[in-house]
Structures are given as C-alpha cells and as structure tokens.
C-alpha cells in the first residue's frame, strides 16, 4: 500500500500493525494446533485421526506467521497504516454496524435496520428527517415484500413485529 496519505498526519504505523497481525495469526495457529492435539493429531487404528490435517495446517500458520513477524521487524518504517482521522471514519461505520448486528437477535432485522439508516443518514450524511425516514422505512419494507412475501424467506423478527401480528 504505497498510497500517499495526505501530508504528515499522525496515526498508527504500518509496521506496528503488521507485527500485530503476525502475532494474531500466530496465536490463531497455536489455537488450531492445541485444538487438533486434543482430538488426536496422529495416526489412529483406522487411519489419520480427526486432528491430523488441522494440526499441520496450524503448524504451517505458525511457521509463516513467524516469517511475517521477522519480515515486519526487519522492515524499515514504512509509513502510516492510516491517519487517526481515517480510523475515526472507519469507527463511525464500525460502531453503529456492530450495535446494529448485536440488536438483531433481540429486535429482529426490521427495527434495527430502520434505526441504522436513520442514524447514518442524519448523523453522518447530514440529511433532513423526512428523506432519512423515507429511506429508512422504504428499504426494510422493500425487503419484507420481496423476501418474505415473494420468495417466502423468513427474516428474523422481534417483539414489535409480533405485536403487529406480522
């Protein structure tokens, strides 16, 4: 990623994130190895055991993560991963999206979708309420009609839909 990040903003360094990612994948590899060893990673009476294949997969992840880690450590500082402002932008999507996803098991898909679109459009898009409400009602309604009515695919529903008897 040799993108020119406007000027000299501050933010996490690419190198630090690379090191972090390598450590993360290594941890993942270790978990896979551990999980394979508990179910048996050797040769059973009837052939390879359940953990045989994943064990080597985990091993390769660890070895290659180590290579990536060494590469990242040896690399000269390669600029910013992203500016704080850019990461802020990302969080402004990520946080509402995470809350949205977390609400779905409790409220169904329709109400959270409505809230997500309203919040997004008024807060990030600086749109007025009338347009935001129109989109926020229209989109879920469209999916209700096409998916549930036309294709007969049920979507998750919550207490509100139950109250309305949908």
């Amino acid at each position: 990623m040799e993108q020119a990040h406007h000027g000299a903003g501050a933010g996490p360094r690419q190198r630090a994130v690379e090191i972090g990612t390598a450590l993360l994948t290594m941890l993942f590899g270790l978990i896979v190895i551990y999980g394979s060893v508990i179910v048996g990673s050797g040769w059973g009476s009837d052939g390879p055991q359940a953990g045989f294949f994943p064990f080597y997969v985990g091993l390769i992840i660890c070895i290659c993560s180590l290579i990536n880690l060494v590469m990242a450590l040896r690399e000269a500082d390669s600029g910013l991963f992203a500016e704080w402002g850019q990461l802020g932008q990302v969080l402004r999507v990520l946080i509402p999206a995470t809350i949205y996803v977390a609400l779905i098991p409790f409220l169904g898909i329709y109400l959270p979708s409505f809230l997500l679109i309203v919040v997004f459009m008024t807060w990030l898009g600086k749109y007025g309420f009338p347009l935001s409400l129109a989109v926020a009602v229209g989109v879920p309604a469209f999916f209700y009609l096409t998916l549930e009515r036309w294709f007969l695919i049920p979507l998750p529903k919550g207490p509100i839909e139950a109250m309305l008897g949908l």
Partner: protein
Amino acid sequence: MIVDNFINLYHGFYIAGDPFNILLMVIGILLGVIIGVLPGLGGANGVAILLPLTFSMSPTSAIILLTCIYWGALFGGAITSVLFNIPGEPWSVATTFDGHPMARSGRAGEALTAAFTSSFVGAFFAIVMITLIAPLVAQFALQFGPAEKFAVYFLAFASFVGMSKEPPAKTIVSMMIGFALAAVGLDMVTGQLRLTFGVTELLNGFDFLIAVIGLFGIGEILLTMEEGLEFRGKAAKIDPKIVWKTWKTLPKYWATSLRSCIIGCWMGITPAGATPASFMAYGIAKRVSKNGKNFGNGEIEGVVAPETAAHAAGTAAMLPMLALGVPGSPTAAVLLGGLLIWGLQPGPMLFVEQAEFVWGLIASMYLGNIVGLILVLTTVPLFASILRIPFSIIAPVILVICAIGAYTVNNNVFDVLMMMVFGVLGYLLKKTNYPLAPLVLAIVLGDSAEEAFRQSLLGSGGSLAVFWSNPLVSTIMGLGLIAGLWPLIAMAFAKLRGNTTQPA
C-alpha cells in the same frame, strides 16, 4: 467427441433459451451491474448474498441467474472505472489508466463502448474454449484417484503462492486460515467434533458464504469509509452513432485483443485470476503497441487490453470449476459452493451425470454475454446515476443487505455476528496485504482437499510417497511444487543474472 459436444450444446441452447431462463438472465445481468457498480458489493459477495434466494429454483435456472450476476458484475466494474476513476472491482484497476482519461476528455461513450465490447470478446473467446476443452479435461479427470485429486488442489493453491504479488508467507497464512476454518466442526471421516472448544454455535463450522459476505462486503465498506470517497463522475451518454463509430475502429486492435484473450484464459484457468491478467495484458500492450507512449493519456487500446483479459480470465475461471471442481476465482468458488448446496457434486462426473445442467450453463454463458452487452450499452446512464447516490445512503443500505444475506444462508442470527467479525478481519488483512481470495477458496475446498489427502494416505498406509507413485500424480505435484516455489526460483534467477551482468 467434438460432434457430441455440439449436439449437447444445441440441446443446452434449448434449455437456456427458455423464456423464464432468458428473464433470469436479464434480471441477473442488471443485478450484477448494480452489484459491480456499488462499493462494498462485488461479484463474490453479491452472488453469496443472493444464493439463498435460489434454493427453491431448479439448479439450472439458479446457476443461470447467478452466473449472469457474475457477468453483470464484470461489466459493471468497467463503468465505475471509466466514469469515476474508481475501480468497482480489483480487475478493473487497469481499465482506469486509460478509460478515465478518455472520459475526462469527453470520450466517455467511446471508452465505455470499447470496454464493453472487449469484455464481450474476451468472455466469448473463453466460452468457446470452455466448450471445446472442458469436456476433454473432465474426461481425462475421470481417472483421477484421491492422490491425483489432492495433487490438483495442491497445484491450485501452490499457484496462488507463486503468482500473487503479495509476499508468499502472507498468502500461505491466509490460505491456511481458510483451511483451519473449514476444519472446524464435525469431522466427516471420524464423526468427531474438533476445534469447537465447546461452543455449540461452531458445531456446523464456518460457512464460506458468511465469510465471503463479511470479508468482501463489510471489509470493503470499512475501506471505502477510510478513503473518504468523493464521487466526481463524468457524465456518459452512449448513442448508436458513438457505438458504431467505436466498433469500426476496434478491429484495428485484433492483435491486442487476441493476445489479451490468451493471457486471460491462461490466468483464469490457473487460479491466479482476472486481476493479474488485466495488468499483464495492459503492460504487454503498452510495450508492444506503437502508441505505447500515449498509454495512460486516454488510448483506446489501453482500455481494450485489460478489459478483454479480465473477462477472459473471469470466464475461464469457470473451466476448472466445472471440469475439476477447483474454482479459478472467489466468485467461481461461491458458485461451486452453490452446486454443493443444490445437491450437485462438482467435478468430472458432472459432465456425465448432469449433462443437461452443464450444457445448459455453457449455453447460457453465450446467451448471457450477448444479453449483457446489449443491456449495458443501453442502460449506462441509469447505472452512472446509481453511483451519484451519496455513500452515506448507500453504506447503511449495503450493511442491511449484507446482514439479510448472512442471515438467510442458514436462518441463523449467530451468522450475522460472524459476518461482522469477518468484516473486521477482512479490513485488517486487506490493509496489511494478505490476499483474501486464497482464504475463501480454502474454506470452500478445505473439506474436499482434506478428504482427498486422508484417503490417499489411507491407501498408502500413511506414506507420502503416494503423491509420487505414478507419472500423472507426479507431474501434477511437480507442477505444483514449481508454482509454489516460483518466488524462490525467480529470486535465484535474478541473482544469477545480476551476477553475470554486473560483476561485483
């Protein structure tokens, strides 16, 4: 043999030409172009989201709809590249080099016509190749045992390591994460649970559709948000006069076209994919063409070369998927997953057992691309206006679509949470240059690859020599090793040459 193919193909046209299937083609292409134009939706996750809608259709209609979405997405990438300088798909990056300068100098219509027409030519070339070669490959592959099967998987994944521009160790990590995720859950051979650590939600393992929607959909939205997209597009009008004028100039570039077709087909069959193919075709055209110096300033040949190659590659990626069960691109991988869900076993037996399905699909590729070319030429202004909808409206709507798509795969809300996790992972991996395609392919193929591996070892009593036990399997494994070790081989060559040309 060849005559049989034509009879089969003729029968296929009969199936694909059914009015309902033609309607599905039109819908598929239109949806596909929209998917290709919108940031955050692409071929792979667009098909993944719509896959559950097809569960109730006949497999032939379903695959026609989904492949047409794929063709549409391939076409759609060109629109954003030319008009907005934003590649809708990675393989259209090379199209922006000359396509956007053309649009800036008021030749958007010409650039788009050239792009669509070359896409069509590339795809058509690849389909003809599939028609002629796929049955032969499939017949040849019928004699494959588990060892040969594993060797083919090995070759496919090894060529990722050798071909991708990312560091090999990162490609391998990405691929192996995919294999590990595929292994989670019930082990088909021993019936044992593994890697679930007592979490009941993991009993069924990770669904690749969820991974695709998260990695490509949510991850892409986060990336787009970070870059703070401003859409500053050029207007486009295509009228028949411009189309005709452009078509008259295109035959001049037949050599570029043919070369790009061949590059595309080659790169599409080996799972390196459309993106490197488009860059390679652009680079070679720039070197060979007598207008090479003008490349980058709006040279029509610079649009023809990458578009032809990208589409040839995208289409050729279907060949190994149909004939061998090894998809050549992430989207082909999703389609392969679809085959499994519809109860079809991808691989050489498909040509024998499901001849109607295979030939219906191949015939639909011909028709779909013709329908696609006509549709995109006539509807460009419509799609360009979709891109003018601000991102703050598009983003939440795409989030909702992804959530619905993830939910409908298994009617499970836990999957929606997993999608979000994959989304963050996708953002992180993409920013740190880990390729996502091998990860997806490994999740799809993980179980089959493992099964082939274990069966071969079972036959040989655990000895790895089984992968070198006959000329066929040795050849495939050998090719795989060369492909996988290519970075090292290339480095050694470079060193040797460096030493001879400039003695230290």
